[in-house]
């Protein structure tokens, strides 16, 4: 009996140590990455290539998702607001929910699944085929030429994607509310314009999306670098990236909302 309790305690201790060690490696990884970041602008073509792979290739999913999220929001909002004879407020509702929460969060979740996982898999595979070690052998710092461009590209791409998501969502909401449900067009735009504040709503949303970008980039790059260099290890790291980034985004969103609004 005593032995079983001790075993149990040992297991808890062991997993806590593993977790702490991973956090420690993550912190060291970030600390080492930060001084390398300016180099992502030193070789611009690397950065542009990463913006293409993470941003441009994410466009279809982001734009489609944004359109449908806006349409659904508008439809649901209309059904509730029509009871109070204030269906013109559907534009305000769609714009505010997209700008403050749904735009940054959903765009970041999609981005983590679409681009974050790919980044982890790519770097994990680079590690398992010893390309990273090869770079180091040639006195090329992989932090400067592999990690930094990907990190900066994520920071640039994330707010842009989130803004496009929001614009598409508002377009979708407009199509449903004005085109289909017959809400007055002038009231739709003017009410939205009157109650959405640039600093309070729009800028806070953009700040959120940049913060999510940092989170995704750190998790995706670290998991790739930390992956066990086997095919199983890389697949596990890819899964962990998606799970940790998604949960992290939702948790960070709560913290940011509590601080901002």
């Amino acid at each position, binding site marked *: 009996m005593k032995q079983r309790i001790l075993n149990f305690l040992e297991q808890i201790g062991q997993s806590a140590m593993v977790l702490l060690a991973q956090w420690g490696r993550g912190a060291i990884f970030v600390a080492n990455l930060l001084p390398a970041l300016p180099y992502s602008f030193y070789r611009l*073509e690397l950065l542009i290539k990463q913006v293409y792979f993470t941003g441009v290739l994410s466009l279809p999913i982001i734009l489609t998702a944004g359109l449908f999220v806006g349409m659904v929001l508008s439809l649901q909002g209309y059904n509730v607001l029509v009871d109070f004879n204030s269906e013109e407020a559907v534009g305000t509702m769609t714009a505010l929910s997209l700008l403050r929460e749904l735009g940054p969060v959903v765009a970041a979740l999609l981005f983590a699944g679409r681009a974050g996982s790919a980044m982890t898999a790519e770097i994990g595979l680079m590690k398992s085929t010893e390309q990273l070690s090869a770079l180091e052998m040639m006195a090329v710092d992989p932090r400067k030429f592999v990690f930094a461009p990907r990190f900066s590209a994520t920071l640039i791409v994330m707010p842009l994607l989130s803004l496009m998501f929001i614009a598409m969502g508002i377009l979708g909401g407009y199509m449903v509310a004005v085109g289909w449900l017959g809400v007055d067009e002038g009231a739709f735009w003017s009410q939205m314009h009157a109650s959405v504040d640039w600093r309070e709503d729009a800028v806070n949303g953009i700040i959120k999306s940049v913060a999510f970008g940092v989170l995704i980039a750190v998790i995706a790059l670290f998991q790739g670098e930390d992956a066990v260099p086997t095919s199983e290890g890389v697949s596990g790291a890819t899964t962990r990236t998606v799970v940790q980034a998604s949960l992290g985004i939702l948790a960070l969103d709560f913290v940011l909302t509590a601080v901002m609004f």
Partner: protein
Amino acid sequence: MTRKQLIEIWVGVFVLMGVIALAVVAFKVSNFQGLQERSSYQVHALFDNIGGLKERAPVKLSGVVVGRVNAIEVDPDTYQAKVTMSIFDDYDKLSIDTSASILTSGLLGDQYIGLNVGADDLYLQQGDRIELVQSAIVLEDLIGQFMTKFAESGD
């Protein structure tokens, strides 16, 4: 066209789309008005009760927005609410006996300050105080008054 050029073109399109989305959000959706505030002068007024008036609430004259509420604080001497508002410089011909009242847009809308211009020849200047004020109508007080009158007439 090489593959590299194609990638660069696409990235250019991507960034351009992002900028367009930003412009849509800034100008079509929200009330972005440039980085610098419109030049304005400050006046203040003392109210007994401001109701639900908030900072940055609009100041309207004949329904047109002519300024914004800057700050709301309690005057330490009179314990009244001191509302400081900036009026845009375009509207510098407001007579000194202009009155300010706290109104509500619609039945449940946000509260704003409505100005009514008087007939004096002197105009409001930076730092002046608007003397004629009407506080916000508090629904509970209104119902209370109605109930007392109702009770009195019922006797």
